[in-house]
């Protein structure tokens, strides 16, 4: 069964007719040709499909497009502004934080979300105290990024990249 939806993707509004079964991931990749979010598992387990959905990092493979009619979506493809890489993208280059690159767009969107969550003072399981301001320690980054799997095992460089983009040490 079909439904009409409007999705604003990387700043451009698109009106499209989708089957109600279409996930946001399939709408982006198959209908709008934006292949930066990747389909790793399609079951919410790997994080390769992570996008920023109305400002928050979310898995596009478990979101139905119809349920997000009117949403603003930012993909890794739309993070660079005026030809300038986003600080998280630059940090991934500086720190050599990928090998094959398949998980990278998801890692980058997730990291952008993490840095925003840290700025808001959102706690994590790794924090020593629920009410303290979070710091971008190794353990904090590892915990907050644990939903993004990297089959190449680039984690040793992903953690410092996220720390660098967050303006911390590393």
């Amino acid at each position, binding site marked *: 069964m079909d439904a009409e939806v409007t999705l604003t993707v990387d700043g451009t509004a698109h009106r499209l007719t989708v089957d109600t*079964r279409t996930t946001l991931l399939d709408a982006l990749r198959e209908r709008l040709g934006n292949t930066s979010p990747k389909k790793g598992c399609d079951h919410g387990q790997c994080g390769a499909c992570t996008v920023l959905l109305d400002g928050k*990092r979310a898995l596009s493979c478990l979101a139905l497009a119809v349920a997000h009619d009117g949403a603003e979506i930012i993909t890794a493809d739309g993070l660079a502004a005026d030809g300038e890489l986003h600080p998280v993208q630059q940090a991934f280059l500086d720190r050599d934080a990928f090998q094959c690159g398949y998980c990278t767009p998801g890692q980058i969107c997730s990291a952008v979300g993490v840095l925003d*969550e840290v700025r808001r003072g959102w706690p994590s399981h790794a924090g020593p105290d629920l009410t303290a301001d979070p710091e971008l320690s190794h353990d904090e980054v590892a915990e907050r990024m644990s939903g993004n799997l990297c089959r190449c095992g680039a984690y040793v460089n992903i953690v410092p990249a996220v720390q660098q983009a967050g303006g911390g040490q590393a």
Partner: protein
Amino acid sequence: MKPFAYARPADVAEAVRDVAAEPTAVFLGGGTNLVDHLKLGIVRPDLVVDVRTLTSRSIDDLQDGGLRVGAAVTNSELAADRRVRERYPVLAQALLAGATGQLRNLATTGGNPLQRTRCVYFQDASTACNKREPGTGCSAVGGYTRYHAVLGVPAALPDPTAPETCIATHPSDMAVALAALDAQVQVLGPAGARTVPFVDLHRLPGEDPSRDTVLEHGELITAIDLPPLPAGARSAYRKVRDRASYAFALVSVAAVASGNGDVRLALGGVAHKPWRATRAEGVLRGGPLTEDTVRAAMAAELAAAQPQPGVDSGNGFKIPLVTRTVVATLRDLEA
């Protein structure tokens, strides 16, 4: 995936009417469990009724000093709320120990406690499963039981072919904390509104393992109320898993020490429902909390436990593990 109609009615009353009128209809929250199940073909609705933008997305102060959490509040928002972090740390910790940031940003207060079991056989439509397809039997008995129940199962080894057999556990971390907090669930159904104590929301398999909760078809969770805790109360959640992050619980413990000698304990990963350890609570009531008294209390709680044999030596490890986890949780609370 089977085709389905999608509806986002004008309000919750209409959503309830829509689902009640269509036997296969389901409510959609954040979709992180339901959409997975649609893909796996283990839920096959003709109608999906989206309630995420219809139910409340705010956390309101109640007159008695508690909080009312709207069903659409995300797991992230709830864990980050200052009042929750300060007054109900057990709940914030349980939420943060579950899933990942990208999932918690989608997952809702109404959907989390109603997520289905992660039993590998339930999720695999090619296997026998009384929960998924009543009457087909239980593939978990004698199979992979590492994540399965030890409490609330028959004293003898369950019969894998019997229609009532199910040794699945409830996977939610949040639900274990809500059980210890004596939360109250606000429900709207075709017959009107009612309040269900959280500890009574989930059920044991009984004669019908296909039913996880006491909710009738068409009943919608509109909010969850957190009653106030006594001044000086302390609470904590502790989860033991196969990895440091992003894994379901092998066992977990939610504890609330009220400060006047009473302790409330709920256990995760051990039963078909979040398990309120009322026997252990009774043994501990009014007495000192020492390692010996806590071990004795847990021995009473686990007297009826039935470890399940299975691959990798089954799940008997949960009995000492949950005991030690309760000891450690209460020691940290008292420290």
